[in-house]
């Protein structure tokens, strides 16, 4: 059975240990919410799963269907079916959403497999892109479905986008790339209630039986719209508690100080 298993993961950046033994398994059809304070290492976990080069894994492993992905480049992980929705998507001036997404989708769906060969033989690089008409049709349909204005196809990636527009575009990209496992890093942060509903609605549409989600969040708020199967509390570089949706409610009620009282003060924050 398909699964993404994080096994006793330790990671550091610039000499500082951030992850201190994280273990969690994502399975298709399940939504796993992970809650924790700012600075607890949640985003680091997301980056390490996606393969950010600044982080060094010192112990443990990440296994996709039993195979380690630690040696894989970020694009290879994406092509294997792992998607990270960024908390702060960067803007790329001059690169349109459509142009970028066509390349990304073509890679992930295997259209570009032969491109290298083509370039070696003097062919036009990029000729193995997904056919333009087919891509356009699909993009237009998905933009409508995920409530992204069609003008965004021509706009430069995240350039001048509001917070809500950025998050919605992340969901759109997720819809186009059709990953098996998605890590959503604070996809709810900085959104007003309407924008939050749109984003949550998009995630719910994508949460089908064949897909697994890790929903990283600071607030319980988004869990009013997305029903998790599991909720974990992340504290000081590791998961300290896992349970059903009731954990989120308990945390909401008692606050993060309760976590500290239970599991000790965070060394990381110091």
């Amino acid at each position, binding site marked *: 059975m398909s699964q993404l298993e994080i096994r006793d993961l330790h990671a550091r950046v610039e000499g500082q240990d951030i992850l201190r033994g994280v273990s969690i398994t994502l399975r298709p059809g399940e939504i796993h919410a992970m809650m924790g304070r700012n600075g607890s290492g949640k985003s680091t976990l997301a980056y390490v799963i*996606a*393969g*950010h*080069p*600044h982080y060094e894994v010192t112990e443990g492993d990440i296994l996709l269907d039993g195979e380690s992905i630690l040696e894989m*480049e*970020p*694009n290879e*992980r*994406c*092509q294997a079916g792992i*998607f*990270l929705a*960024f908390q702060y*998507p*960067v803007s*790329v*001036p*001059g*690169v349109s959403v459509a*142009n*970028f*997404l066509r*390349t*990304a*989708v073509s*890679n*992930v769906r295997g259209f570009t497999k032969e491109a290298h060969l083509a370039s070696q033989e003097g062919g036009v*690089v990029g000729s193995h892109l997904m056919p333009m008409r087919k891509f356009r049709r699909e993009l237009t349909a998905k933009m409508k479905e995920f409530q992204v204005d069609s003008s965004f196809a021509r706009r*430069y990636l995240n350039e001048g986008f509001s917070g809500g527009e950025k998050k919605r575009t992340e969901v759109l*990209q997720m819809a186009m*790339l059709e990953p098996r496992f998605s890590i959503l890093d604070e996809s709810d942060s900085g959104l007003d209630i309407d924008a939050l509903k749109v984003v949550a609605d998009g995630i719910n549409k994508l949460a089908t039986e064949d897909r697994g989600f890790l929903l990283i969040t600071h607030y319980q708020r988004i869990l009013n719209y997305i029903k998790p199967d599991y909720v974990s509390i992340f504290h000081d570089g590791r998961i300290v508690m896992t349970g059903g949706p009731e954990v989120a409610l308990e945390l909401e009620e008692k606050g993060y100080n309760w976590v500290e009282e239970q599991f000790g003060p965070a060394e990381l924050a110091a």
Partner: protein
Amino acid sequence: MLDDHTQVLDGTSVPAVNGTDPARDALLARSEARGEGAWMRRFREQAWAAAKAMPWPSLTDEAWRRTRLTGLDPDNFSYSPTHKGRVGEEALSPLLQGELNEMESAATLIFEDGLMRYRTGVAALEEQGIIFKPLDLATREHEELLREYFMTRVVPVETDVFTARHAALWDSGTLIHVPRNTRVELPLQIINWQGEGQAGHHHTLVVAEEGAEVTVMDDLLGARRGLQNSVIEIVQEPGSQVRYMHLQDLDMSAWNLMHGRAHLERDADLRWIQVSWGSMLTKAFLDLVLRGPGGHADLLGIYFPTGRQHIDHQTLQLHEAPHCFSDLLFNGALKDRARSVYMGSIRVTPEAQQTDAFQRNGNLLLDSSTRADSIPGLEIEANDVRCTHAATAAQVEDEYVFYLMARGLSRPQAERLIVQGFFQAVLERVPVESVVHKLEQVIERKIGG
């Protein structure tokens, strides 16, 4: 100096060839062999004398402080003296056939080693009264026009030692003259191929009469271990519209010197695209002179030096009349020990009130072995103006690359998109779609190589 120069133009006698200066004798002999009007030999001889009297750039000269010509001996190149004759398209090299066919043009002139080899589409233009012909032919057929405009007022012979040498030694070159209220729909294309070890002096003179509209593309190729010393002159009468694209894709071992200048009279509209891909070293002077009210000029440049290339652009936006607009944007990417220099000046004279003049230079450093110098300057003597300048230098950030890779793009694809995106601000203002496509291909090649 101008008086001397006028004298040159008035002379019609053929100078006596004597043996005291072999280089001069050779250039005059070439002029004769090319069948140029006799007045042009006198013009060349005078220019040669002027060049010999002019100083070489010194290390203290501000324009040459960052770009040294160490190792350049301009007399150490060969010239191709014999006429190879006109050929059909099928006899052109595959490279030139490719250049010819990749864009739709109203007419094309192809030069090889300083001489015209091929032309197409010219007859139809002549029916409209449009002149598009090689300069050597024009010295006979359009002497009046050349006497008026050729290196007299836009880029005068004695601008510096290189323009003086150019005036004496010019080889490939084109006269474009578009009469009043005449519009050339498709671009006029000039392709210049220069052989190994040769000195080339390419000239383009565009005269757009009142209300005329024309698009010109100059394509410079070849010059392996050679020297190209070009001059571009654009004269715009009131209300004319010119689109000029200069695509320099010379061999990576070429020396490239250039002087380009445009004069805009009242309500004239210019967009100049300057592309610097090739050459070992480029020093290009590009000047806009807004001489009548209501003029509008865009000067847009892109450059992408790699592997020890040195590319230097020096620009001037000279506003001499009120209510004019000029916008300059030069974007360059640098890779693998490349070096670029950008020096820009906006000069506004006291009478040029209500000037809008903008200048931006952006540099994208693909690795830490590169260096980009950006030196903007303003000289404003009018009080009611809007002038800004900005220079930026940025590295390709890991965060950008990671973001794109996390969406399935390979590292080269991610870097290519970032660089292409960076050039997009210029590319989207290139007026000919096929040229945009061609530029994108070169960018791709540069990133890959």
